[in-house]
């Protein structure tokens, strides 16, 4: 009898994934679900701020499903990248974001697509939230012509509208982000710039130079430190004389946020955005988060931390599980519905990986293009004096 049921459910599941048909095993109408619920979120530590974000967040069913889908897509995309890297289909640098999904998704939920964002090299998640597709992200990782930067940038150099990468030099993106904020203020469109950096970068001198100017000129800049406890292999205690990253802005108000809770991140971002848009100048958020992978694919990630620690975070604080539990226990979605999303996400990732592995590499005549913008075609010296290559804008 059990075997019969297994066979039947396998057939049903199989047909569902093959046709993409939505096979709902148990019939429930949408009227059964709670349209929205209020959740308690952790209080944020504050620095030079009178009031923090509210201690409760309202989540609608639509929002919840959207956050779930995006985080799951991000998670699966990163895991697929891990797989492809081990198969040597992705090469070079690959810094994975799994574990930190609540940060990217929460931040985007607190701002608009018309706002601006810049981050460091752990950028695949943000490329997604800022409008990139999984296909073009994966094809960029595999270095193909369908990549978001036509295969010329790679993992650390992906760009979309109002998303300035993907930056390889630790800390350099912070002044850049303040510059984007300057442009926002200059052009008067009520936009702001979210400028991210890690706990490792937080000690960079140029960041303090940027705090100074952003504050002096009241730039609409949200500085966000994604503190995942390790700068490559160095724990925060070994790198920073003060690990209160949210206070390091000194004269800039700051708050420390639970970066594993998408709602906490969202509410804090909303507060920060309001602060900037009201002309008060910059604000600093520290998101306490965690990365499951090592610093990059060449780092197993267990020489400087224990497997137990990683497992503990996974079981107690996983951002996707947290959201899932909240929605299920409040009857905002069904197990099957979320499973369907999982299936769809898996399919999307598979398709993207398929594209990323079969799309051809960029043509050789693209080698010297994109040196200058809006310039007439020019000649570029090849590897020897007789080889003259063509370059167009």
């Amino acid at each position, binding site marked *: 009898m059990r075997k019969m049921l297994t066979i039947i459910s396998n057939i049903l599941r199989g047909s569902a994934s093959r046709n993409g048909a939505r096979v709902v095993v148990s019939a429930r109408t949408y009227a059964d679900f709670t349209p929205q619920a209020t959740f308690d979120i952790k209080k944020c530590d504050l620095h030079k701020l009178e009031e923090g974000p509210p201690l409760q967040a309202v989540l609608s069913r639509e929002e919840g499903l959207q956050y779930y889908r995006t985080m799951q897509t991000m998670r699966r995309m990163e895991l697929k990248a891990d797989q492809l890297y081990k198969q040597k289909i992705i090469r070079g640098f690959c810094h994975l974001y799994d574990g930190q999904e609540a940060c990217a998704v929460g931040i985007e939920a607190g701002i608009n697509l018309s706002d601006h964002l810049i981050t460091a090299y752990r950028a695949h998640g943000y490329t997604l939230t800022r409008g990139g597709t999984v296909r073009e992200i994966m094809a960029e990782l595999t270095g193909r012509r369908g990549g978001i930067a036509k295969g010329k940038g790679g993992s650390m150099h992906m760009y979309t509208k109002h998303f300035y990468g993907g930056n390889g030099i630790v800390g350099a993106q912070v002044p*850049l982000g303040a510059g984007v904020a300057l442009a926002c203020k200059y052009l008067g469109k009520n936009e702001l710039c979210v400028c991210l950096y890690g706990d490792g970068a937080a000690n960079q001198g140029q960041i303090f130079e*940027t705090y100074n*100017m952003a504050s002096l000129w009241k730039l609409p800049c949200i500085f966000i430190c994604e503190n995942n406890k390790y700068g490559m292999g160095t724990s925060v205690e070994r790198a920073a004389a003060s690990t209160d990253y949210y206070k390091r802005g000194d004269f800039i108000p700051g708050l420390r946020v639970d970066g594993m809770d998408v709602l906490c991140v969202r509410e804090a971002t909303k507060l920060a955005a309001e602060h900037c848009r009201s002309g008060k100048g910059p604000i600093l958020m520290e998101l306490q988060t965690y990365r499951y992978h090592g610093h990059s694919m060449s780092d197993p990630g267990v020489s400087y931390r224990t497997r137990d620690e990683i497992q503990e975070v996974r079981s107690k604080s996983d951002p996707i599980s947290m959201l899932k539990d909240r929605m299920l226990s409040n009857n905002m979605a069904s197990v099957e519905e979320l499973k369907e999303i999982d299936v769809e996400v898996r399919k999307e990732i598979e398709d993207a990986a398929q594209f990323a592995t079969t799309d051809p590499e960029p043509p050789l005549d693209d080698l010297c293009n*994109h040196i200058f913008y809006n310039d007439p075609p020019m000649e570029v010296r090849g590897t020897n004096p007789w080889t003259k290559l063509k370059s167009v804008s």
Partner: protein
Amino acid sequence: MASLRCFLRSGKNAVSAGLRREFHRTPPAAVQVTVRDALNQAMDEELERDERVFLLGEEVAQYDGAYKISRGLWKKYGDKRIIDTPITEMGFAGIAVGAAMAGLRPICEFMTFNFSMQAIDQVINSAAKTYYMSAGLQPIPIVFRGPNGASAGVAAQHSQCFAAWYSHCPGLKVVSPWSAEDSKGLLKSAIRDDNPVVFLENELMYGVPFEMSEEAQSKDFIIPIGKAKLERQGNHVTLVSHSRMVSLCLDAAAVLAKEGIECEVINMRTIRPLDAEAIETSIMKTNHLITVEGGWPQFGVGAEILARIMEGPAFNYLDAPAVRVTGVDIPMPYAKILEDNSIPQIKDIIFSVKKTLNV
């Protein structure tokens, strides 16, 4: 004396027009303009023309510019467009690049290019490479400008020439004007260019007046980046130079002319992209090449020119090895006698010409 020389050098048109008996046409209304004023005019005109253009740097606003290049601009355009920065090059250069990414057209002034080393990562990794890395998605329309190279008595840390360092990198344009016309036309071009341009000025040239033609006084006068200018015609040897050294080449040429040696003097105007064609055309006529620069010899501008000539069609036209006249390969000393002997002098150029021509 310097101004008289400059007047005579570039005032050929005005003088000859005056000598010709032209009753029906008034000679062109050329004026004397210093390099400083030419740069000021260029920025003023471009600030007026395009609202997205703005200037930031140390002392550019209320102080009127450390070398007074931005005199009067803050008074005219205000805090929004002329921004005084703290002494934090890496920070403000990065901010300038970020502003360019988001649609503005910044002019980022380094008080001298020696201080640009603090910010060089932003110039190279954030500005120069981004259009390529993004496969055309993200242009960076920015100008980095300021005095470059040796000054007078400012010693080692304040006298380095960065032409070679910046010209090494694809994705940058590197411009080095000599005259007032060069300065104005090239700075306007640089500001209108949609790409990162490193604009190397020279402090010792700021106060030097040049004749500026009526054409050059127009608000639309631009000089295209990437084209060298023939400053003096000659048959015996080609002297290729940039910035202040062009003055020395012309002075040396004047002295040599008395001995019957006619030098062709090329003012590079742009270091990257290098106008190799102009140099080759000249060598095919004169059969001799000497490059003259203020910077150090190793891996310098002259080294690149010589390598290109070796690899190109002009090699077969050389009657003698091409050579370089450069600064001495040492950090710049302070004492005047030492400093004077650390950079090329007119006599060094004359000596090199005679050695090359074997006279």
